[in-house]
């Protein structure tokens, strides 16, 4: 069938600059470039281009530019180009459209409508360059009160505290499984987490043996397919996360095309090589909240109650009530994943239409847990759409203990958000398991970039905290008085629990 799809991009090569070094031919994994031996020139097939920038960055003479195809559909606000392309594509293939990364539509971004406070006159701002400002964060269930006995020798703690995970910055790397991303990418995350004393999440694809030494900085997932779950896996980790849902695709399970299931992926996931790794939509042993409780306690039993168990859900309409149930079921942390959260592969229609913005879900969950007097019992970790340090600060002020970053971490390693992760051909060596491609990513270099990002954000968070007159992150947690809204309706302000700017 002839395809009626226009190529999205045009790849332009400046013939005057090109030295025919063929770096682009090597770098492009989508087959855009080839060397035409007859004409001794470069052949370019723009229709294959995904605009990932790999060739542009690696062209030693800056001869390549990728531009949007100027041949556009007739302007139509209702039938936008994206919509027409999706329709044409489905007419030609007859299937569910897949997409990579997170929802990219023009849904409201509440982070951008929330503004932070700063001290003026009545209390001094604190300068993090000259004074300590603390970001250390502990994740895990906290008791409602402490018992302290006054021995003759000073006060002594008598309450046993549930297991806690220590972070030196309130930022963790979000769940990205081996298979969805390369082992090199995961190792880079692990190295960065180790060096910066935070945590990375291995996702639902098991933990490759090479990463066991990083277990102390690793959260392992138990998802509906139980890929790679065995006792050594659980024991190797610092914490365990039950993955119920994911912001990019609430209501459905993980999706790893067979092409990405190489020998090592198959060993790690404990599934046959080359088979599609499709997680069931629900956990078939969790059809209600009491079943979740059983799984949480089965995991705690298996690991001697020394590791916190998180439960991750997608941000959906009734997240607040669900989160309350999760805390009552014994989870040490609730993870809320917003609709902007990314993924290696999700049905486009689900990615762009299911779930709610993280900001609203977070505000509702934090308030509900407080209303019920159980906020201490679990930490709240949010992910799915955290783009910069300001988002982190706003999330904490809304009530989060810490945030997960996925997309930002991938971008730090080289990802340009071309959204083609599901093809397994990621030219940056990130979302691929092809060893020939993944070796492009050096874990050492990539972890350096990740550490730099964490450091930059942490400095910025300290600066904003100090500006608000606080020298410790726990004083920001749930401190919505330091937030003001602009351009929000009364209803939105009410859900967010913030006042309008100027009020």
């Amino acid at each position, binding site marked *: 069938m002839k395809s009626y799809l226009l190529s999205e991009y045009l790849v332009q090569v400046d013939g005057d600059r090109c030295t025919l070094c063929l770096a682009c031919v090597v770098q492009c994994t989508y087959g855009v470039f080839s060397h035409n031996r007859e004409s001794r020139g470069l052949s370019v097939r723009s229709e294959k281009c995904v605009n990932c920038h790999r060739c542009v960055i690696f062209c030693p003479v800056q001869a390549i530019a990728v531009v949007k195809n100027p041949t556009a559909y007739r302007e139509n606000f209702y039938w936008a180009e994206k919509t027409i392309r999706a329709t044409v594509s489905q007419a030609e293939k007859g299937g569910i459209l897949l997409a990579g990364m997170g929802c990219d539509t023009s849904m409201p971004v509440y982070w951008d409508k929330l503004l932070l406070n700063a*001290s003026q006159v*009545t*209390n*001094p701002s*604190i300068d993090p360059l000259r*004074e*300590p400002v*603390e970001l*250390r964060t*502990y994740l895990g269930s*906290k*008791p409602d*009160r*402490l*018992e*302290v006995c*006054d021995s003759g020798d*000073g*006060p*002594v*703690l008598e*309450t046993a*505290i549930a297991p*806690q995970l220590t972070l030196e910055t309130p930022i963790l790397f979000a769940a990205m499984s081996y298979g969805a991303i390369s082992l090199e990418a995961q190792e880079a995350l692990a190295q960065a987490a180790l060096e910066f004393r935070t945590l990375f999440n291995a996702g639902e694809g098991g933990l490759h043996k090479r990463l066991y030494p990083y277990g102390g900085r690793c959260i392992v997932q138990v998802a509906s397919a139980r890929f790679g779950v065995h006792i050594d896996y659980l024991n190797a980790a610092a914490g365990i996360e039950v993955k119920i849902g994911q912001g990019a695709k609430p209501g459905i399970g993980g999706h790893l095309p067979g092409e990405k299931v190489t020998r090592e992926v198959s060993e790690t996931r404990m599934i046959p090589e080359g088979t599609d790794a499709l997680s069931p939509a629900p956990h078939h042993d969790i059809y209600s909240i009491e079943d979740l409780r059983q799984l949480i306690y089965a995991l705690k039993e298996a690991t001697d109650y020394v590791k916190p168990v998180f439960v991750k859900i997608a941000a959906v309409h009734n997240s607040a009530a669900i989160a309350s149930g999760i805390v009552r079921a014994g989870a040490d942390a609730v993870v809320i994943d917003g609709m902007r959260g990314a993924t290696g592969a999700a049905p486009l229609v689900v990615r762009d239409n299911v779930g709610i913005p993280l900001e609203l879900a977070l505000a509702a969950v934090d308030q509900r847990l*407080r209303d019920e*007097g159980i*906020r*201490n019992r679990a930490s709240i970790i949010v992910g799915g759409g955290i783009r910069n340090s300001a988002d982190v600060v706003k999330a904490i002020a809304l009530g989060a203990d810490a945030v997960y970053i996925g997309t930002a971490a991938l971008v730090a390693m080289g990802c340009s958000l071309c959204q083609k992760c599901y093809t397994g051909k990621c030219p940056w060596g990130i979302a691929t398991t092809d060893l020939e491609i993944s070796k492009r990513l050096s874990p050492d270099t990539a972890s350096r970039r990740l550490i730099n990002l964490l450091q930059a954000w942490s400095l910025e968070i300290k600066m904003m905290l100090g500006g*608000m*007159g*606080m*020298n*410790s992150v*726990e*004083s*920001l*947690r*749930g*401190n*919505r*008085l*330091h937030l003001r809204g602009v351009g929000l309706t009364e209803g939105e302000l009410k859900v967010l629990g913030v*006042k309008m700017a100027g*009020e």
Partner: protein
Amino acid sequence: MENLGCANNPYRDSKVVEACSLFGVMDRGGRRFDGKDIIRAMANMRERGNGLGGGFAVYGLYPDYRDYYAFHLMYENTTAKRRTEEFLAKHFNLHLTEEIPTNNNIQLSNPPLLWRYFLQPKKGCGRSSWDDYVLEKVMTVNNAIEGAFVFSSGRDMGVFKGVGYPEDAAEYFCLEEYEGYMWTAHGRFPTNTPGWWGGAQPFSVLDWAVVHNGEISSYGTNRRYLEMYRYLCTMHTDTEVLVYALDLLRRVHGLPLEVVSKVFAPPFWFEIDRMERKEKELYTALRQVYGSLLMNGPFTVIFTSRGEMVGLTDRIKLRPLCVGVKDDLIYMSSEEAAIRLVCPSVERCWRPKGGELVVGRLRAQAVEKLLASSEV
């Protein structure tokens, strides 16, 4: 006061901001003395206030009625008084009811009706739960009866406060005629003009009273945490959260004072990391569990309760506190000059470090040298 929030916070600000002068003095021997010195000391720090609030707390005030709760009430009108008195009669045995004596030659803006009641919970309420009972009733009056406000509810102690400079409030309430073994005072510089008497300090509930200077940046976090424990922060002041936090940690959770001070002004993590194991465990747990009660931002506070006066600043000392000792007398003040004015022969005068607890206790209970506290 149904509209407590409105009365204290007419512009509905997130919270009421103020700066202040503080002074406290106690005689560890328990000897009672009049208010002349503390009034002079406060007048000496007049620059620190702006005439929009002044007040005093006196302990050892009503020795003849030691077993009775002394309720001090402000009424905006006689209806409020009637409704409150009906409520009190229903829940308490009233021993004595009288108008609080005032000197009406002193012109203060818009004074309310001021009455005091010596009372005990009605039979059926076990003595051990008296405090809880009284606290609940005070909250009820303050939140449900329009125009009525209980501004003092302890035993053998009382608070006197109003809109004006502290020395004027003292004259208005004839404080030179009262005696107590411990006095604290507050002069206020609010950044708005609530003009409401209940908004002045000391802020007090049961035997606790607090005078406070500062603006706590963590207020939003502190308040939402306390709301989880059913404390309603209707006054929108930092002082209010300090008092409720103190009540929660000391009375409800039973934590020792020095531990409470380390919740409000904890050591930095780098300091905790260097501690011995046992100590490290305690301090780590305190920050993990009570991190939401860290009082972050500038404050100096003087807490008083029966027989005890406690001074504390924020951990990086963004507000002043000076302590002086002369024989059995202990002074705490925003300014050293005020101490030297009333006690020129003060023996020791020093400024405690940020977050360092200073405790003065009646000799009978022995003044304890506490962990990381100043020796008094």
